[in-house]
């Protein structure tokens, strides 16, 4: 008896534990990603230490000078030199064959220059003129281009000290600030004693800072960089990077290049994901919903069962096959037959409508009920549309588009890329049709039949009963089905890797490709060094996808529960 009692208890506990475990597992995935991503948004810091662990190689970056020269001579280590005058006159020299050649001469209109630096390994020139804004310029060929100014402390500026190709110190009385150039962001700040700084040295790996004071004492500091090239600005707003003419959303991780900091804007990737999902839904939603409604309401029971079962089986179709077909068969075909595709898009629905009208009139004349056409009758407009499109396309292309639609589009400035959103729409549309179909079919067929029967008894046609009674009741369920499909489209990976070309473009142009969050994740995750900014931003992208699908799936789950309740009430 006792043993039975304990068995009951243990069983209850262990089963309950596993049940809670599901909730915990899901929460843990969330928390783990958040915990991993968290350091991205922590500010850097410069903290005093007794002395560094090992004696690093020091680089002298700043030496207190005695007087002001009339001319500043700057060097960036790329065999380029800049000569600046205090009134803003600037000459930029390049080394060519042992001699210095003047590349650029300009006169900047600004208050008398107080300090200027050329960042090492870059062409960015920082100019301070006594205001709390440091101007940032870079050279592009024979031109100086301005980037947004960088706000520094409004106490008087003593010196600008270059650190790396994208960061610098600004030295103020009693204050040392570390700035990021691209995002014009303050990375870290250090309060200094009132002593005068004699000498500033930085270790080789830029982890340690050593300050020598005029009084003869020295201090060591450790710099916590955290993730200097990641901030809200860089992730979500246009940033003016060096070498470009205007601010842009750039995704160039450049794990391979030595000196450049990664350019990590999530905007192109997010837009790519949304664009792919949008075109897929555009293709899949009408087809799947109409097909599901027809299956649920018009097909005989046996056929309904078979169609539904086969659709459910197709749901597990490996998308890697679809991606391959899309990239290697569909994309070249569509490029050849773009006009045919549009003709089909136009002809199929219009011919179906036309034949419906003809069928209706014919039935009406013979005074028969005109509702369900047979399969063979339905095939007629479809085949006719295909045939007409095949016949008509070459003729139309010759007559209207001067022989080629692609060239015609090209002349109007519309760029057609072979791997584009239409391809993705079709391939990914096929992948999401089964999910939308099976849930829609479920909710529509489970609507209590008594609802429709009342309307039918009043003499309405079956479609009238359907559209006035059944569909409004099932609407939340259909919405849930669409959202389910959307969730699947947002998370799809293989089709996007294989068929898009992974071009981080902006905008919703149907003729260009995209790069999605998912494709970036699976392509770049193995290359990103653990705990690097790139790795963390990819985890952020994963978190973003998780949050997006979390909202969608929660909504789906709420809608499904609501519709279950509604059916129970009826």
């Amino acid at each position: 008896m006792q043993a039975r009692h304990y068995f009951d208890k243990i069983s209850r506990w262990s089963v309950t534990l596993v049940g809670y475990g599901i909730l915990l597992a899901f929460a843990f995935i969330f928390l783990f990603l958040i915990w991993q991503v968290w350091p991205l948004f922590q500010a850097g810091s410069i903290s005093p230490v007794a002395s560094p662990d090992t004696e690093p190689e020091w680089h002298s970056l700043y030496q207190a000078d005695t007087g002001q020269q009339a001319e500043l001579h700057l060097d960036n280590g790329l065999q380029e030199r800049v000569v600046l005058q205090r009134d803003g006159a600037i000459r930029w020299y390049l080394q060519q064959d042992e001699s210095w050649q003047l590349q650029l001469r300009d006169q900047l209109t600004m208050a008398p220059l107080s300090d200027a630096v050329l960042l090492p390994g870059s062409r960015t020139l920082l100019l301070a003129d006594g205001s709390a804004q440091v101007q940032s310029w870079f050279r592009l060929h024979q031109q100086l281009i301005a980037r947004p100014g960088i706000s520094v402390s409004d106490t008087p500026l003593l010196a600008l000290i270059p650190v790396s190709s994208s960061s610098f110190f600004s030295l103020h009385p009693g204050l040392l600030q570390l700035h990021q150039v691209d995002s014009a962001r303050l990375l870290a700040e250090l309060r200094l004693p009132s002593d005068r700084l004699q000498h500033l040295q930085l270790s080789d790996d830029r982890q340690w800072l050593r300050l020598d004071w005029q009084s003869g004492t020295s201090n060591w500091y450790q710099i916590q960089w955290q993730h200097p090239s990641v901030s809200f600005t860089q992730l979500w707003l246009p940033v003016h990077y060096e070498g470009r003419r205007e601010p842009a959303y750039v995704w160039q991780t450049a794990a391979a290049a030595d000196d450049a900091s990664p350019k990590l804007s999530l905007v192109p990737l997010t837009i790519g994901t949304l664009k792919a999902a949008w075109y897929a839904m555009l293709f899949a939603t009408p087809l799947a919903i109409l097909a599901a409604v027809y299956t649920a309401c018009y097909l005989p029971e046996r056929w309904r069962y078979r169609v539904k079962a086969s659709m459910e089986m197709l749901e597990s179709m490996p998308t890697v096959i679809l991606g391959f077909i899309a990239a290697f068969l569909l994309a070249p075909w569509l490029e050849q037959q773009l006009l045919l595709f549009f003709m089909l898009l136009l002809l199929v629905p219009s011919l179906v409508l036309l034949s419906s009208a003809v069928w209706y009139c014919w039935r009406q004349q013979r005074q028969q009920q005109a509702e369900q056409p047979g399969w063979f009758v339905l095939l007629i407009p479809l085949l006719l549309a295909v045939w007409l499109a095949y016949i008509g396309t070459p003729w139309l292309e010759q007559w209207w588009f001067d022989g080629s639609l692609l060239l015609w589009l090209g002349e109007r400035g519309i760029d057609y890329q072979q791997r584009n959103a239409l391809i993705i729409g079709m391939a990914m549309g096929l992948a999401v049709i089964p999910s939308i179909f099976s849930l829609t079919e479920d909710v529509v067929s489970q609507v209590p039949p008594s609802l429709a029967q009342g309307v039918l008894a009043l003499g309405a046609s079956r479609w009238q009963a359907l559209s006035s009674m059944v569909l409004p009741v099932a609407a939340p369920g259909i919405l849930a089905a669409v959202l389910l499909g959307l969730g699947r489209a947002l998370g799809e990976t293989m089709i996007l890797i294989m068929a898009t070309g992974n071009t981080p473009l902006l905008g919703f142009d149907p003729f260009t490709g995209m790069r999605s969050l998912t494709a970036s994740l699976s392509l770049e995750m193995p290359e990103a060094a653990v705990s690097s900014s790139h790795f963390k931003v990819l985890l952020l992208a994963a978190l973003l996808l998780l949050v997006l699908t979390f909202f969608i799936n929660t909504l789906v789950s709420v809608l499904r529960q609501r519709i279950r309740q509604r059916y129970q009430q009826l």
Partner: protein
Amino acid sequence: MRQWWQQGSPWVWLSASALLLCLGLFMALLLLITSKGLQHLWPAPLVQFQLTEQTEPELGRLMRRQDATDGMDRALWLVDRGDSLQARDSSPAGRYLLITATELLPERPAEAVLVQMYDGRTLYAWRQPQRTADAFWLQTGTGEQVALPWEQVRAHWLPNQLSWWQKLQLYLQEWRHFLTASPNQNPGTGGIFPAIFGTLVMVLLMAVLVTPFGILAAIYLHEYAGKNWLTQWIRTSVYNLAGIPSVVMGVFGLAFFVYVLGGSLDRLFYPDQLPAPTFGTPGLFWAALTLALLTLPVVIVATEEGLAKLPQAQRLGSFALGATQAETIWKVVVPQAAPAMLTGLILAVARAAGEVAPLMLVGVVKSAPQLPIDGQFPYIHLERKFMHLGYHLYDAGFQNPDTEVAISLVFTIGLVLLTLILLLNLSAFLLRQQLRRKYRLID
């Protein structure tokens, strides 16, 4: 006209055609994969072509017709000349040739032989009458005679002399080889056995991991959980777990299982092996664990559905006889719902077999010549990397510069993968069907 619109005739037509279109598209897709996939290994006849009057005729296999790109209206044929005997690599540069129809000789030589070599090369040549014990005598396209050692020859046949029946036999033989051999060093040749085996081992391991948790969670949700907000939350997280993009799960698997868990395991148990990793690297176990997390909801939902179908009267009857809840569940409910659990498991396996994106991050490799199960102690090597059909398909399609071979090979692998998945799905479907019938009888 107005009546036509109001009675909904256009909508009926549109929705019917939408259904027809959907089914048609999927049928076309399946037909495409099947027909192309079955073609790959079919022994095609060899033809002769002569490029100029002076040169010797060459042997080749017709691939397909192509339209001329130079605007002239003539028929072009793409011919596959096979691999060459001299160089050991099969750089595809010279393999395919576009010839005009006039260059094609009408008769098909009966003595044309197709030789499959063990290193994956395929040769087209003329068979020579002299046969020795250790070598196979051939005449190549350039006219020279070569002796090919027998131990290099895997198979050979005379495609133009084969009867239909012989062709079928050969075809089946080639399929057997394709399914049971390892890939060769030449991309796109050899078999796919390690990929099939890797897929099966991975999904079985995943099934072992996912079954207890999935079933217990379903039992909790259906038998124990009260109707409160907590249950609501658990249900929502099951739905959410099902909706997490698979690649995100892969990212989690890499960042947590491999780097965090695997790294700690290595530091704890295998410090002598470091820096060479044991579990701190993507591998079979982590892949199975990641996919188990991914397919957990499938098992839960299917099991719960089975539990819900079981008549309440049975439980009440059990209680009435004095059984505890645990006894009722384990001795009455679970055995009867077992087919439903099996259904869920099969569906989970089908889903796992088709996933590629998460596996790319947590343990699949292009080539792992040693299988995860072998005769070496401890026989099952959980830390090994493995090959997977879906990834092998991606790899064969994307990493093979020879587009012609890549496309037909991909369809063949795709056919195998699709057959596997559809069979699994079909068995789950039939099982569920049987279950329904049974419950209907009980009711």
